[in-house]
C-alpha cells in the first residue's frame, strides 16, 4: 500500500517518508502561519494535540487563542465557528470522530451550508470542518462511520477527502483557503500511511473539485476516494495477473464532482466500478453511477457496478473486515463486468 500511495511530490528538498497525519498537521501549521485569521478549535485539539495528534504543537506555537480546547459540544463548536467566521476569522473545526459530528448537523445544514446563499453572498462562511472518518482501525461503535452521503446531499457544502500524503497537505490548504465551507473527511486508516514527502517542499495547494487518475489503465475504471483508493490500487495490481488493466480514479472531491475526469476515463475504458466504504443504498455510489450512466451510456459495455459497505449500521470491530470492501470484492465486481464476453 505504501508504495502505491507514493506520488510525485515536489522534491526540491530531500524527501523522506512522512505520514498523512504529519502532512495534515503541517498543512494546519502553515495555514496558521500564513494567515492570522486561521483558528483551530475543537475538543482536545490544544494541550493534547488531538486524539490523532493532527493538531500537535499548534497551541504551543500559536497560543490558546489560535488553537483552542473547547467545551465538549459539537454543535457549540461549529456554532461558535459560524460566529467567528461572521467576524472575519477562518475557523478550522475538528470533530474528533465521524459519528461525533452528528450533534453539529443542524448547525452544518441549517447555517454553515446556506449562509452565503441566504445572505446573497454578503456573509460567506469560510469554515473547514475536519472529520476523521471510516473504518479499518478497530474502533468501537460510533468511531468508524462513513457519513459522506449526508454531506454530499447538502447544497452549499464542499466535501473533500484525501487519499495520499500529498493531497492531505494540498487539499487541506485548499479547504482552509476556500471562501466556502468545506467538510474535510480524513480517512483514519490512512493517517499512518507513508510517502516520500518533504515538509520543506510540500506539494502545491490543490484546486478543489478535481479528480486524479492514480493509475492508468484501459480495461475498466475503478472510481473511488479516500480509504478505498489504496484498496483499488492493490486490486488493479492483482488484476494484471488476469490480464486486466484497470484505471483508478481518485475523486478527491465529492462536491464539486469532477464529471470531466471521471467521464473521460469511463469513455476510454467502457466499464466502471464505484468503490467506497459507505453504505450502498442511498450512498455516494448511486449518484456517481447515475452520473456516469447519464453521460457515458453509449460508451458503456456493462452496467456501472458498485462495491460498497453493506447497508448496515457500522459493525463491531471484530466483524468490520467482512463489511469493508476489500480487494477480492473489487475483483469480483470487475469480473462481473463480463470481461471475456466483451473481448
Amino acid at each position, binding site marked *: 500500500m505504501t508504495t502505491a500511495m507514493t506520488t510525485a511530490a515536489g522534491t526540491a528538498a530531500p524527501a523522506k517518508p512522512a505520514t498523512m497525519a504529519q502532512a495534515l498537521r503541517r498543512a494546519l501549521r502553515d495555514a496558521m502561519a500564513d494567515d492570522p485569521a486561521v*483558528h483551530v478549535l475543537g475538543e482536545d485539539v490544544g494541550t493534547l494535540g488531538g486524539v490523532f495528534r493532527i493538531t500537535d504543537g499548534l497551541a504551543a506555537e500559536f497560543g490558546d*487563542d489560535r488553537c483552542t480546547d*473547547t*467545551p465538549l*459540544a459539537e*454543535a*457549540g463548536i*461549529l*456554532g*461558535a*465557528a*459560524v*460566529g*467567528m*467566521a*461572521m*467576524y*472575519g*476569522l477562518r*475557523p478550522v473545526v475538528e470533530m474528533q470522530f465521524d459519528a461525533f459530528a452528528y*450533534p453539529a448537523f*443542524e*448547525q452544518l445544514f*441549517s*447555517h454553515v451550508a*446556506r*449562509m*452565503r*446563499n*441566504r*445572505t*446573497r*453572498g*454578503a*456573509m*460567506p462562511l469560510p469554515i473547514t470542518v475536519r472529520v476523521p472518518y471510516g473504518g479499518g482501525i478497530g474502533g468501537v461503535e460510533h468511531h468508524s462511520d462513513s457519513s459522506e452521503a449526508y454531506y454530499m446531499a447538502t*447544497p*452549499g457544502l*464542499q466535501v473533500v477527502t484525501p487519499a495520499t500524503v500529498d493531497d492531505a497537505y494540498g487539499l487541506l490548504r485548499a479547504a482552509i483557503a*476556500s*471562501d*466556502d465551507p468545506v467538510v474535510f473527511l480524513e480517512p483514519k486508516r490512512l493517517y499512518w500511511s507513508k510517502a516520500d514527502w518533504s515538509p520543506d517542499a510540500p506539494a502545491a495547494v490543490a484546486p478543489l*473539485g478535481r479528480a486524479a487518475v492514480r493509475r492508468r489503465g484501459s480495461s475498466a475504471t475503478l472510481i473511488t476516494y479516500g480509504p478505498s483508493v489504496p484498496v483499488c490500487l492493490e486490486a488493479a495490481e492483482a488484476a494484471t495477473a488476469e490480464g486486466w488493466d484497470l484505471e483508478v480514479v481518485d475523486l478527491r472531491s465529492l*462536491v*464539486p*464532482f*469532477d*464529471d*470531466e475526469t471521471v*467521464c473521460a476515463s469511463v469513455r476510454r475504458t467502457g466499464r466502471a466500478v464505484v468503490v467506497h466504504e459507505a453504505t450502498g443504498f442511498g450512498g455516494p455510489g448511486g449518484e456517481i453511477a447515475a452520473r456516469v450512466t*447519464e*453521460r*457515458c*451510456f*453509449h*460508451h458503456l459495455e456493462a452496467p456501472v457496478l458498485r462495491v460498497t459497505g453493506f447497508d448496515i449500521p457500522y459493525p463491531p470491530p471484530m466483524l468490520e473486515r467482512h463489511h469493508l470492501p476489500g480487494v477480492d470484492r473489487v475483483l469480483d465486481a470487475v469480473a462481473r463486468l463480463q470481461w471475456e464476453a466483451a473481448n
Partner: protein
Amino acid sequence: MRKSSSTTVQELPGSAAYRPTPPPAWRPRTDPAPLLPDPEPFRVLGTAAAAAADPELLLTLYTQLVRGRRYNTQATALTKQGRLAVYPSSTGQEACEVAAALVLREQDWLFPSYRDTLAAVARGLDPVQALTLLRGDWHTGYDPYEHRIAPLCTPLATQLPHAVGLAHAARLKGDDVVALALVGDGGTSEGDFHEALNFAAVWRAPVVFLVQNNGFAISVPLAKQTAAPSLAHKAVGYGMPGRLVDGNDAPAVHQVLSEAVERARSGGGPTLVEAVTYRMDAHTNADDATRYRGDADVETWREHDPILLLERELTARGLLDDGHRRTVADGAEEMAALLRERMNADPVLDPMDLFAEVYAERTGQLGEQADLLRAELAAEAPEATGDPGAGAGGPRGDEGDAR
C-alpha cells in the same frame, strides 16, 4: 453487636485494616449567590425608581413602542392581504424588542430570532428588507454587516452560539463589540441554548442572552417547557448572572439590558436576562390561540400592556400631553402607510438568482442546472432576464454525448 456499615472497618484477609481516606476538600468553583436572580422581576414603572428615570429615554422608548405596535398591526394586516406569507407578531413584547435595539452601540451585533423583526427595524433596518424573509422573496433581505444584524433565525436557539463565536472573535481581535442574542422561552429547551451559554461563560465572551418569555412555545405553556424556578435561574448552572425583568416595563428592560451589555463590554462576561412578557397575538397568523389559552389570561395581560404602563408614567410626570401623544401616533401611522405602500408593490425577482450564491464559484453541476432554467425562461419569454454569473456551466461543464 451490629455496627452501621458506614462505620464498619472491614478486615480483609491477609491485609491490614482498610481505612478510608477523607476525600479532598470540595468547594464551589464560583459563589452562586451573586449569580442568582431576584425572585421578583425587576421593575421601574410604578416604583420609586420611575421618578428618577431620564425623561428623554422614557419618551424615546414611548415613541418606539408606539411605532413598534403599529408596525406589528400593519404587518399582521399584510398577512391578511396575502402580502406576507406569515408574520410572527411581537405585539405585547415591544418593550423587549425596542430595548434590545436601543442598548446596543453602532459596532455591536444583534442576533434576532424569527419573531424579532421589530428589534431589527428599531435598530435601523429598512422595514421592507426586514420583511423579505416573511414575504418570501429571499431568506435574508439585507446585508447583515450594514447594521450588524445577523439574519433572522428560524431554527430555535441556533443563533446563540453564533453570537458567542462572533463576540469571542471580536474580543480576540481587540475590538469593543458586544453581541446581544434574542431567544424565546421554548428556545431555552434546545441543546444549542445550553451549548451557547456554556461556551459564553467558559470563554467569558462579551455576549448577552435575552430570553423573551412570552408564556408559550406555539401552544405549549411554560409549565410544560421547564421545571426551573425561572429561566433566569438557568444562568447559575453556567456560572453567569441571571437577571429577571418585567418584559413589559420598557425602562426596566432597558436598564437591565444596559447593565448586562456594559458588564460584557467591560470584560465581565455574559449575562442571561429573562424578560417576563406575554404574546398578545397568536404564534403566527396560521395559529389558533383559543385552543390553548383562555380570554381571561389575555385580558389580564392587556392591563399590563407596555405602552399603557409607560403612558401612565409619562402622563403622571407631565411628560406627555394629548398633543405629543397625537404627534407620536401620527408618526407611527405615517410609517405604517409607507410600509403598506411599499409592500403593495410586487417584488421583482430574477429566477437566475437561485444559482448566484450557492458557492463562491459555480460548480459544473449548478452550471448545467442554470442552463436548464435559462432555457425554460427563454421558452416562457424570449426576452427573459440574463444571468450575469453564468458561464454555460463553465469549463467544468460536460455536455456528454448521450443526449
